[in-house]
């Protein structure tokens, strides 16, 4: 594996020339490993961590194919093949979960994705540095709050005893239950997600905007291009690579509808429209200890997610942009 990199002329002055026969090479590899022993020692704790906490759980995936008995353990539980997957795909719950997850993600992509771009374009027009900084500082603050706290702030407005309902009651109207009304749940989720993240999302676009060559605008002006044409022909193409990259990544994460957020707003009254794969796996697996089915559902999500992210990366690379790996 590392044979090639052994020969990389990496600043080691005493490194002998390559290709002196196989035996020599093996001995050289040994020497190289011995020389790097301190480096390996440094990496060791991290590798041990990864081995235990990310690779060992892979073994646990097998319970998706087993009739898991806690007393018998993972090893001795009998295999049942794809039974749990069969019951997953044939259950009534599954299409609903998948639909909720994808719809919430898609809405968020459709309505939420353009907002930071527009916001960045507007901020870019501002010439008062202080004003620009001030607005930026305010708008990306919510990014650092947890969903618990942010949801608390939202509840302060829309909760059963929140401001909107207090105003409604004071003016003699009926209360409106934002939190238990299936009709508004998805809207609520999308809007709050936008509110929390648009300022933060704009940072990367602003960086891209500042990298556009000013001479392009001069040239466009000479050609008689108006403001909007400049934005259309210079600004947007200038940030196109970063837009494409972020769009692909979001599309790859379509099965991640955001556990933290959904969990804060979810309650049994809105399960029909708001229960996503992650919240279901949590309830089924941890609260009801139905490990096999929950693992199968989780595995489904993981595999699709992996396929999507690899696809996204390939697309980005094909487009000639900088890919993730």
């Amino acid at each position, binding site marked *: 594996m590392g044979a090639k990199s052994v020969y990389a002329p990496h600043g080691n002055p005493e490194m002998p020339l390559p290709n002196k026969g196989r035996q020599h090479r093996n001995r050289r590899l040994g020497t190289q490993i011995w020389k*790097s022993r301190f480096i390996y020692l440094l990496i060791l704790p991290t590798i041990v*961590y990864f081995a235990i906490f990310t690779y060992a759980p892979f073994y646990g995936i097998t319970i998706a194919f087993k009739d898991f008995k806690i007393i018998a353990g993972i090893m001795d539980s009998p295999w049942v093949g794809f039974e749990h997957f069969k019951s997953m795909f044939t259950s009534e719950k599954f299409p609903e979960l998948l639909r909720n997850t994808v719809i919430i993600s898609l809405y968020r992509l459709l309505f939420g994705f353009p907002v930071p771009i527009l916001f960045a374009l507007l901020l870019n027009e501002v010439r008062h540095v202080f004003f620009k900084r001030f607005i930026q500082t305010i708008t990306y603050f919510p990014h650092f709050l947890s969903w618990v706290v942010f949801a608390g702030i939202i509840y302060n407005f829309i909760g059963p005893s929140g401001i909107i309902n207090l105003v409604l009651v004071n003016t003699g109207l009926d209360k409106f239950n934002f939190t238990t009304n299936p009709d508004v749940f998805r809207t609520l989720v999308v809007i709050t997600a936008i509110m929390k993240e648009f300022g933060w999302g704009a940072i990367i676009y602003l960086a891209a905007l500042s990298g556009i060559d000013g001479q392009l605008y001069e040239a466009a002006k000479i050609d008689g291009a108006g403001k909007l044409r400049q934005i259309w022909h210079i600004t947007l193409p200038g940030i196109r690579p970063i837009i494409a990259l972020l769009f692909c990544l979001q599309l790859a994460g379509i099965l991640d509808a955001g556990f933290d957020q959904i969990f804060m707003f979810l309650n049994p009254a809105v399960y029909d429209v708001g229960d996503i794969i992650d919240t279901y796996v949590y309830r089924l697996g941890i609260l009801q200890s139905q490990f096999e089915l929950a693992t199968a559902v989780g595995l489904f999500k993981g595999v699709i997610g992996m396929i999507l992210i690899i696809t996204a990366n390939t697309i980005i690379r094909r487009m000639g942009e900088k890919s993730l790996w």
Partner: protein
Amino acid sequence: MVEQPAHAAQSTHAAQAAKQSKSIKSRSLDANPWWAQSIIYLILIVAGLITLLPMVNVWAISFSEAHEIYKNPMMIWPKSFTIEAYKYIFNTEVLLKAFGITVFVTVVGTFLNLVFTATGAYGLSKTQIPGHRFLLWLVIIPMLFGAGLIPMYILLKNIGLLDSVWVLIIPQLVAPFNLILMRNFFWSIPESLEESARIDGASDMRVLWSVILPLSKPVIATVGLFYAVGHWNDFFSALYFISDNSKWPLQMVLRSIIIDFNMLNMGTQNTSTLNDSSHLVVQPENIKAATIIFAIVPILLVYPFLQKYFVKGIMLGSVKG
């Protein structure tokens, strides 16, 4: 302006444009007409207010007497100033204990995160060691595919970490993304710096400690803050892995105060309970508001640092990633 336009009419145009562009120099775009500029400022102010006002409102409510809230909840400044709600939450043992747990997890956790991430990142930045690519992939793969929640739960159960404070720290010692970020930074440090230290007789340990780490302060600060904010806001590790609520960190307790409080009130449609007790100084709304502010203040205190480093960090990740 080297290019000469063909027509004379245009050339005056160009001269004008050139003059204009000279006066604005570094600006990339033309100045907008006043009305367009006003609209832009207006939209931005509205965006700022949408973000700011809900928080200011929570702050005002937390310091106001209960009956004022029912009269006019749309306040941005406390009315009938009182600190009763804060007295209440500072007497709530559960909340203070959770706060202590979260502080412990954030401090100890972030320290361990940095130790494990920095050593691993430094090692992986040495591309000449045999097996380097293999080790790097070992770190990258978990970013693409994880075993999922339940296998993790079973593992933690088997090694006896469930229901312990350490479950909030140990399973998240290294985040692959942060490791790669740091590794790329170390990697970009010129090799010659290390060599010269070695020629001066420095050991490997010495090189790492006296040459690499001092040069890497920005990336260490960025990654450290990533981890610290992660620990501070961490909610789901406790939700998944800690069922004993005396060991809950702050976010879990916050949830039970801020959100389940709502859940309790949800069934009661009548407002009589509110009106009956409105003579009381402290109401659930005050307490919830005060709790939210209590959780925001520590973030607010480190915000200047967060801002400075995170913005740099996000660039670092995108440029050198």
